[in-house]
């Protein structure tokens, strides 16, 4: 099962995890990304490319399903205005065993950062600024290049 959602509504982790546990998997792994209050950030807004975003997330989820033989892959990304403490993104995987679930979960979030059309704008008091891409994100995504599951 693949579930992809891009929505303005707050992310309800309880509902998402309950949904993925219903698959009967032996292992469920998840990652939650939360807006930080770093350097005086008071707000964060997420813009995306409707249509392409959902297709890109489905593609990432399908890659993970095939590579690790998952039972489920879930990607939920919030868009629009948020404040520190809000959940921005939630990804989860279900597999027979923990290694596949944990590795695939890391793959989902690493690839999402470089392969899906989202843009962050931070607010600090009265000023806003677009967040720049980080080389460390490209490196994290690149470690999943190549075929087969890493040992």
């Amino acid at each position, binding site marked *: 099962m693949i579930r992809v959602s891009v929505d303005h509504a707050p992310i309800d982790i309880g509902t998402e995890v309950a949904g993925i546990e219903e698959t009967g998997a032996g292992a469920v792994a998840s990652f939650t990304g939360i807006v930080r209050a770093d350097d005086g950030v008071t707000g964060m807004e997420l813009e995306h490319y409707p249509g392409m975003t959902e297709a890109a997330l489905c593609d990432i989820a399908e890659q993970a399903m095939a590579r690790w033989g998952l039972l489920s892959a879930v990607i939920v990304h919030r868009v629009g205005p948020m404040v520190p403490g809000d959940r921005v993104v939630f990804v989860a995987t279900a597999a027979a065993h923990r290694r596949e679930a944990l590795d695939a979960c890391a793959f989902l979030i690493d690839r999402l*950062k470089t392969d899906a*059309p989202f*843009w962050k704008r931070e607010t600090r008091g009265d000023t806003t600024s677009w967040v720049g891409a980080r080389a460390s994100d490209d490196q994290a995504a690149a470690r999943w290049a190549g075929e087969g599951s890493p040992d």
Partner: protein
Amino acid sequence: MRLLYFAWVRERIGTGEETVEPPEAVRTVADLAYWLKDRSPGHAEALMDLTKLRAAVDQRFVPLDSELDTAKEVAFFPPVTGG
């Protein structure tokens, strides 16, 4: 051809969407960006430095030297920062 702009590219150009009919000489995505610079000072500012731009053709990421071929929708934006 439908054009879409996101993030600071959209802000500098002043719109998120427009329709254009580029001449035949415009063959690649980079050609298109160069051709669009003449449309307004905002276009010129947004599209000045191609190293800061990324693009998608028909909702797929592509390098800027890609041929446009039969592209119906082209998007310009900064490097993505989701998650």
